């Protein structure tokens, strides 16, 4: 079991490195950070441009640049931005912002998604099932940025109707906010609700569909019939034998869900003015900044890696057939 997980971990790390290398190469090939410098009026002298190129190691072959960057990254130095600021200084703050958003959104999404999916399966073809299905479909057909916009729009109507700033949709905290711990917490919560909802809604819709499928599969299974034949009521058999088994395939989905989340998170951060990793990625690409892009890619890959590995662990915990490998 431990060996199995260890092997998977090694596989993930290898994937992670190659993925980062690819992203770095792609970025280095397509970006032209000195382009902005050259567009200046009057154009800077060639020596300045050359100096900038040397500073950004643009004159060296890409693999060398990658090794250079990776060497730094291993000891916590992710290089400098094109604006000559340290990537490492900015990194922890950005990660903190993103993780707060992602973890909360995912937790809410998984929990409610599973509940909704199970309810839908048990009440298959009843009104509530149709309603849940329709809800999921509509959410899954709505891009995150539109969902965010609509929530923002709705919150504004709500605030106007209530005559108070109930929900805040810009930033993590109110700028320059001073107050007691309780008031600070409330302020944070007010800022947190909309972005979390934006992320969670998609996840709820996504997981509930799968949970419903998995549960329906289990509903027709022989072992559920055996449990009932033993004398369990249908409800009890469903929860004790059905749900427990239907959760097994869900474990592998959580990794995929995380991949989806990162894209969604980017939009959410942008729309609600949270300066997290997703926002940084867009900024990095806009600024033709290879180091930022590579760093964010590494972060994304590590996140997918961790969630993938965690889902392996969950899978092993949930399913005795894997546990014994």
């Amino acid at each position, binding site marked *: 079991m431990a060996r199995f997980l260890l*092997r998977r971990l090694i596989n993930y790390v290898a994937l992670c490195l190659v993925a980062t290398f690819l992203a770095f190469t792609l970025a280095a090939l397509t970006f032209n950070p000195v382009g902005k410098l050259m567009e200046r009026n009057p154009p800077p002298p060639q020596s300045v441009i050359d100096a900038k190129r040397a500073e950004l190691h643009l004159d060296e072959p890409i693999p060398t640049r990658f090794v250079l960057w990776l060497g730094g990254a291993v000891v916590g130095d992710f290089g400098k931005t094109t604006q000559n600021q340290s990537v490492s200084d900015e990194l922890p703050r950005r990660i903190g912002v993103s993780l707060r958003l992602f973890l909360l959104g995912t937790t809410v999404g998984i929990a409610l998604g599973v509940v909704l999916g199970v309810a839908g399966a048990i009440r298959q073809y009843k009104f509530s099932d149709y309603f849940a299905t329709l809800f999921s479909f509509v959410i899954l057909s709505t891009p995150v940025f539109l969902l965010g916009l609509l929530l923002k729009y709705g919150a504004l109507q709500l605030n106007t109707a209530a005559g108070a700033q109930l929900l805040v949709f810009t930033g993590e905290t109110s700028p320059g906010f001073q107050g007691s711990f309780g008031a600070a917490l409330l302020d944070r919560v007010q800022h947190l609700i909309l972005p979390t909802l934006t992320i969670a809604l998609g996840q709820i819709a996504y997981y509930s569909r799968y949970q419903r499928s998995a549960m329906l599969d289990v509903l027709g299974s022989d072992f559920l019939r*055996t449990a009932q034949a*033993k004398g369990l009521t249908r409800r009890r058999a469903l929860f004790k034998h059905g749900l427990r088994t239907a959760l097994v395939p869900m474990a592998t989905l959580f990794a995929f869900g995380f991949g989806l989340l990162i894209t969604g998170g980017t939009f959410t951060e942008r729309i609600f003015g949270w300066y997290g990793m997703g926002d940084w990625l867009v900024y990095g690409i806009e600024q033709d900044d290879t180091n930022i892009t590579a760093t964010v890619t590494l972060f994304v890959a590590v996140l997918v890696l961790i969630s993938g590995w965690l889902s392996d662990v969950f899978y092993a915990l949930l*399913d*005795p057939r894997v546990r*014994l490998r």
Partner: protein
Amino acid sequence: MTMIDTDVLADPGLPPGPGDALLEVSDLEVSFPSEDGRVSAVRGISYQVAPGEVLGIVGESGSGKSVSSLAVMGLLPPSAKISGSIRLRGQELLGLSDTELSRIRGRKIAMVFQDPLSALTPVYTVGDQIAEALLVHGGRSITAKAAAKRAVELLDLVGIPNAVDRVKAFPHEFSGGMRQRAVIAMAIANDPDLIIADEPTTALDVTVQAQVLEVLKTAQEVTGAGIVLITHDLGVVAGTADRVVVMYAGKAVETGTVDEIFAAPRMPYTLGLLGSIPRLDIGRGQPLVPIEGQPPSLVALPPGCPFGPRCPLHVDACDQAEPELLVAPGPTGDHRAACIRTAVLADAEAQGGVLAAEVFDAHVVESPVVDAVPRTDREVVLGVNELVKHYPVRAGGIFRRTVGTVRAVDGVTFDVRAGETLGLVGESGCGKSTTILEILGLEPPMGGTVQVLGSDTAALSKADRKRIRRDMQIVFQDPMASLDPRLPVRDLIAEPLEVQGFSKQHIAERVPELMRLVGLRSEQINRYPGEFSGGQRQRICIARALALEPKVLVLDEPVSALDVSIQAGVLNLLDELKARLGLAYLFVAHDLSVVRHIADRVAVMYLGKIVEIGAVDEMFAAPQHPYTQALLSAIPVPDPEVERRRERILLQGDMPSPANPPSGCRFRTRCPLFLTLDADRQARCIGEEPPRAAAQPAQRGMSVVDHEAACHWARIKTVV
């Protein structure tokens, strides 16, 4: 065992009166919605089960036998419409709520399902699942600890060795037979009054089937429960049931005591069914009765007898109204049949199989001419010598490594000569399928040699291989799976011809010819496999295999996926084709009675080796290897009188893993003979692998020509 409730142990000999019935089902009807309309799966069935009685419900797939028993359990899906009455000791069960039913299920009525592999929840231990059955009905009177202890006792009772440790195992660590035992343990946990066993042994190997039936018998002795045994296998019924209900198209068509049904069937369907089963104790000379056609669709049944269109005794009056289940003349007065022509059967001179053959006009296929030529003078069409196939067992994701070797085929030697049929027999996992796949692959084998019509597969060019494929074709077990559902019959049968590059014109002529050869109408050429019945599909497969005029046909369990009545037709066809075309068959099967009917020679495989091989009559009359003897004795004979006389050799446990076979004789871990040997002799079994040696003659003085067994202490034991 403290659970024995002596009060419910009733005398099974008495016919059930109306008052003391344990279970009384009357006019039960069940229907389901479907694509084409409502399917009337059960159309008014009535039966009773007395305490301690074993009632066998027999029928082919789609006859409604499982549905009727699920209705008793209240486990039908909500879409099912149920009417009639189901009474358990007088209490009406239909209409009870789920909560009320849940108090009865598992406590008064227990059920054993068909597929043990999926009947247990994969994520809980076997012990927990058995204990749950106790806890859910025990209320406060039983603690979790006590329930866990009982679970061990119950597992022990159903014959799981080392039960104390095995309760902690998960279902996937159990073999099929062990899981079925665990399900039975669960079923008897609360000492039920009635056990419904729905095809409890269908998914199991014969030797395991014998074990499980024995456990079921023990369970009945311990609980004194009445048993409803649902099965398609008349042999199983003959050996276990007291009374029998024969179902057809959702209705009971004949009921009576087991002796009445088997000795004097009064409904042509029952008669045909009995005549269609190849019998272990008769062999070649038995004409197999095919029942033409297929069961009717249950969506919109026309009036009249549903068996009418397939019945040889059909007269116009049969189409007027569906016949009632009426008393047929007999000693008990409880023998009933739903047929207006009962009298014709009752008046017939002949009895049993002879009568069936007469009524259904079945004949024994003439032996082919090649039989006249001595075996040793005929050409070897397929020669397999010391064939070896080992699989590596791998583990791990990206860095896969070999952790062991499965010795699937470990030195197999046999030959098939022109015009003869070799039956290759063994239980699942013995390596028989791997053997034929290795042969058909035409690749150089891992060890040993394979010769097809004189060419060694180790030295074949690509062109040679293609040429040899013409001479050796295969028919698979599942005709649905072996026909691409997206191609019409024409393309299916033409495929081998196209691959071998025959002209379009030749193909256009050959396909209808082949269809006629296997008894299909050539108008059906544009139909898709989904539109054919199982038997017809298998005929398409045979036609396809014959397209290239092969000399050897490998038949991989060609009839085991078919219902018995259809199986007979396919077997007759194979017999006929062999005689007409002079084919040689390598017939792989697990069912020895089918092999006895069709084969000239038999090879019995166990754990990758052939333990006994020889001419079919000699082998069945005088089996020498303890495994062959056990295998033969485990197969039920559809005759209650014979069954009562027979002694069953029960094997211990399951077949060991081919990844780790026992030393010396591979069978010694389960061998009943081994247990009777003294230490010196046992040591030889453990240390030395028995070679295949000429067997002793069946009768003193007879010279044995074609019979070999691989046992140090081989001795004849007649078991059929």
